[in-house]
């Protein structure tokens, strides 16, 4: 193992250096699909974050008990439990957000970040480290989702968190391209190019 990173570095690395979406390039499905607006993006990040933090904690806490041969199914069960919890809690208390995120909330269970971090990090590290890693990755994930959501909402409908920002002349005929799938692909391509240019994650 590389020299044990200090605790703060585990947390901060998740945000920029090892940003799950733009640097490690995983967890793309929700990033593109649920970022029609900043609110939805953050909602998705919160849901995924809850599952990631929860599963990282449980996996790390139980890592000595889990036999190696069946560790993947056990991780899957733990993760799907947290996913179902957020799924039903959101259906009950945040129906409007749930309607927007739709099938992507249960799809968090196959989100590569969560299973990946559980296996690569939580299963091998202590509880506190895993928590920090999860929080770091969630913040990183939330950052990208917020940026994507805000940009797409701003360009696609001229509003920010629902409140109009751009002049109404623009809002009358905004660039709807951004709200459609091609816009999402295009935007994340640009963001990745910026990340490459800036040399993060070298």
């Amino acid at each position, binding site marked *: 193992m590389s020299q044990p990173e200090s605790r703060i570095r585990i947390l901060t690395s998740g945000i920029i250096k*090892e940003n799950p979406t733009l640097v*490690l390039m995983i967890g793309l499905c929700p990033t593109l699909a649920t970022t029609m607006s900043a609110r939805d993006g953050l909602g998705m990040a919160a849901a995924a974050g809850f599952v990631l933090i929860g599963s990282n904690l449980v996996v790390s806490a139980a890592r000595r008990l889990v036999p190696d041969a*069946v560790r993947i199914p056990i991780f899957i*069960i733990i993760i799907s439990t947290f996913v179902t919890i957020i799924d039903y809690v959101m259906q009950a208390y945040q129906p409007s957000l749930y309607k927007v995120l739709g099938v992507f909330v249960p799809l968090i269970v196959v989100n*590569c970040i969560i299973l*990946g971090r559980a296996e*690569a990090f939580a299963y091998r590290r202590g509880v506190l480290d895993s928590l920090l890693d999860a929080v770091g990755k969630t913040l990183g994930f939330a950052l990208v989702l917020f940026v994507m959501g805000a940009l797409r909402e701003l360009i696609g409908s001229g509003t920010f968190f629902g409140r109009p920002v751009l002049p109404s002349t623009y809002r009358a005929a905004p660039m709807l391209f951004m709200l459609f799938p091609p816009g999402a692909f295009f935007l994340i391509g640009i963001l990745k190019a910026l990340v490459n240019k800036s040399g993060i994650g070298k």
Partner: protein
Amino acid sequence: MDWPLVIKSVIGLSSLGLILGIMLLVAWLKLTVKVDEREQAARAALPGVNCGACGYPGCDGYAAAVVAGKAPPNRCAPGGPQVAARLGQIMGQEVASSDPQVAVLICRGGKAESGQRFQYRGATDCRQAALLLGGPKACIYGCVGLGHCVLVCPFKAITIGDNGLPLVDPKKCTGCGKCVQECPKSVLKLIPRTKLVFLACASHDKGKAVKDVCKVGCIGCGLCVKNCPTGALRLEANLPVMDFGKCIDCGICVHKCPTKSFVDRASGRPKASINPRCNGCGECIKACRFKAIEGEPGQQHRVLADKCVGCGQCVPVCKPRAIDLIGALGHRAA
């Protein structure tokens, strides 16, 4: 507490878990096929997410590729740097036993030294260019310089210098060998990291044929072979081949080579100096190939700093051990 619901739910999922557990147990017992333990170690290091982001079919595929040396250790996306480090360690252990490697360019014919046979306008990729009559470069053995190695290097360790030749940054290069594999001209080679001196020319032509196409090409004169104190060099198809085991990096060949085809990666070479213990026996004068020592027999000898290349051949022959090498060795981009 809605007991019937709880019981139904617990029984339902647990029975599924049981069936799955038994199935996995059967699979685990029946399928323990012996796999090269390095691949098992690599596979254990991988997160097992099988997300395919590395471009290989799942973690097993990627582990096999890494162990077979076909894949660099840092392509696992979910695992991030931790897994890359661990894979590097696993692979590194293999390589470390044979000394960590670094890639170097065995060609010094840049734009200044070697011309072009024709104007090449096409995809800026060495492989494409190499297909066209061996590439636009005057010397068909030499590096085309269109940066395919830059593209494939997973660690971004190679950049094209202003002389049109790739520069390998030893700090970033992990010796994964991707560039060596991909270079159509095979003018990139892996040498042990600690090796300082190597021949930077791949041309099998002789004398005039080389001179016509490149100012710094090796003409196969064999001077280096004659001057090598440890006999580490031998001529094969007009090119001196170096036996890394014997070579002591003294650097004599670098200075003896008439066409400067050797590269000395040391940024600085020490200088010999003779202290008063010298009894003037003159052995060092005979040993020195560069006539950098002068002095009367029986008198204390002196080293001519400008001539001395710091090869250190005089040190062992001096019985009173009166000669020291002063100054440090250093590395610079090959």
